[in-house]
C-alpha cells in the first residue's frame, strides 16, 4: 500500500533553463540599498520608495508565523536570495522584439501560441520584470488598461495609488510586507464601467535564475458593472537550492462588477510559494477565485474576499494536489462586512505518498449583519497509507440573522471501486486516475475549458504509479 509514485512528468515541461544575461541585478541579500537600487532602476516616485522602506521595517519586525504555520518556513534564508534581476524595465509589445534567450523560454512553454488561440491579452514576466505585454487593440479602444505594475505606477498613478495597498495593507502578514518592500512585476488592470472583457487576460510568471525571489504585485480594478477574467500560470526550473515566490494580489470589484481570478500553480518542487491574495467586493459585486495548486515545496495561500457592499458575493474554488515532499497549505478567507452578502468555499485536496495538504479558512461575520450566508465544503482524499491531511477552519458569527455551514470529510479511494473497474478490464493505474478525477470533477468543470483539459491531464500524470 505504501509504494510512492515518483513520476512528475508534467512538471518537467517547465524544468529547463537557458543561460541569460541580466542588465540589472540588485545582488544577494536584502537591505535599504537593495530597495534604493530597485527604486532607482525603475525611476520610482519618492512615495513608492518610502512605501518600500516602511514595508522593509515591518517585514523585519514581524516574526515568522511558525506558531500556526509550517516550521519549514524557518528554512528560508533571506540573505541568500537575489531580489531583483532584469534585462530592462520596459516590456516589448511584439514577440519579435523580445530578446532571444527569453523568447525561447516562452515559446517552449507555448505562451505565444496560446495567445493567438484564445487570449485577449498576455503579459509574460521573466524573473523581476515583464518582458512582453500586449493586449488586443479593441480593448485599448474601450479604455481597458493591462500593463505590468512598473508601467502602471509610472503611467497611471492616479488610478493605481487609490487602491494600491488598500485591500492588503503592508503589515497584513510577514510576506505581504516583504512583497511591499521589493515588489516588481505583476499586472495592473483597469476595466472601465460597463466593459465586459469576453476573453481572459493572461499573465505568465517565469522564474529563471537560481536563488531568485519573485515578488510580483498585481492590482485589478473592475469598475462598475464591468466583467473580467484573469488567469495566471507559472513555472520555474528545478534547482537544488530553494526559490522564493511571494506575490501580493489585490482585486477591487466596484458596484455590480464581476471579477474572476484563475491560478494554475505549477512551480517546481524547490519553490516556497507564500502568496497573499484578497479582493474587495462592493455593492452587488462578485469576486471568484479559482485556485489550483499542483507544484511548489510549500504553498501558503488563502485567497479572500472582503464583502464591503450589500449584496456582494465571494467564492473560492480550490484544488490542491500534494505529492511527496510537498505541503499545500491553502484555504480561503471570507469577511462579511455588509448585509445580504454571501460566500461559498469549495476545497478539494488530494494527498499522494507523503504529501500533506492543509485547509485553513476564516469565515467572519463580526457585526450583527442581516441575511449573510456562507457555505464551506472541504473534502480530502488520501491515496497512500502515509499521506496526510489537515483541516483548520475558524468561523465567527455574531447575531441571529445569518447562517453558516461548514462540512469537511476525509476519505480514500475504496478498494471496491478499484476492484469494480479492474473487473471490467480497466488497468489499476487508470482506475485510480478515474476515481481521483471523479473526486475533483465537479470542481474542474468550473474552470475555463482550456484549463480544465490541461488540469485533467495533469492529474492523470500525477497519479501515474501511485497505486501500490
Amino acid at each position, binding site marked *: 500500500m505504501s509504494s510512492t509514485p515518483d513520476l512528475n512528468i508534467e512538471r518537467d515541461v517547465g524544468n529547463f533553463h537557458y543561460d541569460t544575461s541580466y542588465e540589472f541585478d540588485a545582488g544577494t541579500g536584502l537591505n535599504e540599498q537593495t530597495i534604493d537600487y530597485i527604486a532607482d532602476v525603475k525611476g520610482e516616485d519618492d512615495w513608492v520608495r518610502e512605501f518600500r522602506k516602511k514595508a522593509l521595517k515591518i517585514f523585519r519586525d514581524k516574526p515568522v508565523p511558525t506558531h500556526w504555520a509550517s516550521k519549514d518556513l524557518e528554512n528560508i534564508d533571506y540573505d541568500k536570495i537575489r531580489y531583483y534581476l532584469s534585462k530592462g524595465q520596459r516590456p516589448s509589445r511584439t514577440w519579435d522584439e523580445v530578446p532571444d534567450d527569453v523568447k525561447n523560454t516562452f515559446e517552449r512553454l507555448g505562451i505565444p501560441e496560446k495567445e493567438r488561440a484564445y487570449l485577449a491579452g498576455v503579459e509574460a514576466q521573466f524573473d523581476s520584470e515583464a518582458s512582453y505585454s500586449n493586449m488586443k487593440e479593441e480593448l485599448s479602444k474601450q479604455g481597458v488598461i493591462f500593463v505590468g505594475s512598473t508601467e502602471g505606477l509610472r503611467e497611471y498613478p492616479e488610478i493605481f495609488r487609490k487602491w494600491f495597498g488598500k485591500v492588503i495593507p503592508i503589515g497584513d502578514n510577514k510576506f505581504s510586507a516583504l512583497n511591499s518592500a521589493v515588489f516588481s512585476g505583476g499586472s495592473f488592470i483597469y476595466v472601465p464601467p460597463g466593459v465586459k472583457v469576453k476573453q481572459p487576460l493572461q499573465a505568465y510568471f517565469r522564474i529563471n535564475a537560481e536563488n531568485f525571489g519573485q515578488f510580483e504585485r498585481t492590482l485589478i480594478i473592475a469598475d462598475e458593472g464591468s466583467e473580467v477574467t484573469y488567469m495566471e500560470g507559472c513555472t520555474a526550473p528545478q534547482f537544488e537550492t530553494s526559490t522564493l515566490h511571494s506575490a501580493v494580489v489585490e482585486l477591487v470589484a466596484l458596484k455590480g462588477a464581476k471579477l474572476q481570478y484563475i491560478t494554475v500553480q505549477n512551480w517546481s518542487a524547490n519553490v516556497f510559494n507564500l502568496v497573499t491574495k484578497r479582493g474587495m467586493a462592493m455593492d452587488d459585486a462578485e469576486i471568484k477565485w479559482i485556485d489550483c495548486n499542483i507544484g511548489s515545496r510549500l504553498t501558503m495561500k488563502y485567497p479572500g474576499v472582503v464583502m464591503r457592499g450589500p449584496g456582494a458575493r465571494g467564492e473560492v474554488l480550490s484544488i490542491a494536489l500534494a505529492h511527496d515532499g510537498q505541503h499545500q497549505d491553502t484555504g480561503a478567507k471570507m469577511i462579511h462586512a455588509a448585509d445580504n452578502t454571501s460566500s461559498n468555499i469549495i476545497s478539494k485536496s488530494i494527498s499522494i505518498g507523503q504529501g500533506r495538504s492543509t485547509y485553513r479558512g476564516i469565515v467572519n461575520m463580526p457585526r450583527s449583519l442581516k441575511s449573510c450566508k456562507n457555505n464551506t465544503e472541504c473534502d480530502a482524499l488520501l491515496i497512500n497509507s502515509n499521506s496526510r491531511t489537515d483541516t483548520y477552519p475558524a468561523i465567527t458569527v455574531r*447575531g*441571529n440573522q*445569518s447562517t*453558516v455551514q461548514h*462540512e*469537511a470529510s476525509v476519505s480514500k479511494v475504496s478498494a471496491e471501486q478499484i476492484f469494480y473497474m479492474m473487473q471490467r478490464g480497466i488497468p489499476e493505474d487508470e482506475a485510480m486516475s478515474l476515481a481521483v478525477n471523479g473526486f475533483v470533477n465537479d470542481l474542474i468543470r468550473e474552470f475555463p475549458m482550456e484549463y480544465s483539459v490541461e488540469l485533467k491531464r495533469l492529474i492523470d500524470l500525477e497519479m501515474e504509479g501511485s497505486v501500490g
Partner: protein
Amino acid sequence: MMITSEPTTTDNPSLEDPRVFQQHQDNLGIDVPWLTSAKQSAWSRYLELPSPLRTDEKWRFANLNRIREMGDFRPVPGTTPEVPGIVERSRRFNEVSGRLVLADEALAAAVELDPDLRKQGVIFTTLADAIVQHPDLVQRYFMQQTPELGSEKFEALHVALLRNGTFLYVPDDVEIDRPFVSYNWSCRDGGALFPHTLFITGRNARASLIEFQEAATEETRHLVVANAHLYAGDGARPVHTIVQNWNLNTLSFQLNTNNAQEETVTKSTLINLGSIQARQEIHGKIFGSGSNVEMYALNVPRGRQEFDQRTLQSHIAPRSRSDLLFKNALMESSRSIFSGLIIVEEDAQQTDAYQTNNNLMLSDKAEANSLPGLEIKANDVKCSHGATTGRIDESEIFYFLARGIPRSKAQELMVFGYFEEIVQKLDNAELAEYIRERLVHKFTD
C-alpha cells in the same frame, strides 16, 4: 446570604502571594511522599510557565482579561464552612449508588455508598481519603494523562493546590445501574477551588458518575480549576456527566481526559449553565481498538457568559470510533468558542471519527466562534466534521403559527427540541428531567 472569608487574610494568602504554596503544604494534612513531590514540581512549573497570550492558537478568540486577574483569589482553607442547607440541597435524586458532598472541598456529610457495592470492592470516597487509604491505586492513575490543550499553567496550579475531590473505582466485571452522585459546592467569597475527580472502571465494568458543580449563594466570587479523568479498562462502559452550574461570579476551568482501552463504550457529557467564564478542555484518548468514545456538551450561555471549549479526539489505536456533538444556544451578549480537533495517528487505520458543533443564535448580540479541525495521518479512515451557525428556521416557525401556536411558544418548543438531542443521551431519567427543568429555568428567568 453572604459568606465572608474566614479565617483572616494573614493565614490565608492569595494566589499572587509567594507564601501561598508553603501555606497550602503546611495545612494540607496529607503526608504522602509521591503527592508532596508531585505538588512541589507542579508549583515550580506553574511559576515557570508563561500566561497565555491571544496570539497563542490554543487561546484564539478567548477573553484573557479575567484570567490575568485571578491573582486575588485565595485557596479555600480545608475546613467545612458554615452553610446551612447544603446537605439537604444535595439530595437531588432518589435512585443512587452513592453520594458525596463537598463544601469548599471539605466533606459536608458522611459519604454514602451502597453496602453491597462496597462488598464487591467498589471504592467511592473523597480523593483525600483515597490518597490515604489506597495510595497505590490513586498513584497509578493520578495525573497520568492530561488534556494538553493550552491550560498547562492552570493544570500545574491545580496539582500544586488541590486538596480534595471525588474518587470512584469500579472493579472488573462489576456492573452498576444506579449513578454515583457527587456535589461540589463553592461557598466562601473569593475562594479558589481545585477539585479533582478520578473515575476508574475496570475490565468489563459499568458505572455512571454525575457531578454537580454549584455555588451556595449567587453573590460570592470564585475561581475553580477542576480536573476530571476517566479511565475505561477493556470492555468497560463508563458514563460521566458534569453539570456545571457555578454562580455567575465564577471563573471556572475544567480540564478533562477520557482514556479508553479496548472495546469500551465511553460516554462523557458536559452541561454548562453557570460561570461568567468557563474554559473547558476535553481530550478523548483512544488507546485500544474496538472502542466507541462519545463526547457531548450542551451549553446555554446568557448575559455576558463566555464558554470556551477545546476538544481533542486522539485515535492512537486502529478500528475505534469517536463521536463528538457540542451544541450551543446563545442568548443576549454571550460568547462561545468551540475549537475541536480530531487526530488520527499513522497506525489508527479504519478509524471512524465525527465531530459536530451547532450554534443556535438567539440574540443579535451573541457571538459564536467555531474552529473544527482535523489532522489525519492514516488513509483508511472515515472522518468528518460539521459546524453550523444559524437561527431558528422561520419556515418551521410558520408551521407552528399556521396551527395557532403563538410565536413565543413556538420558539420555546424549537429551542427545547434543539436541546433534546443531548438530553436524551443522558441515559438517566432523573437526570434528564432535572436538566430539562434547569434549562426552562435559565430560559424563563
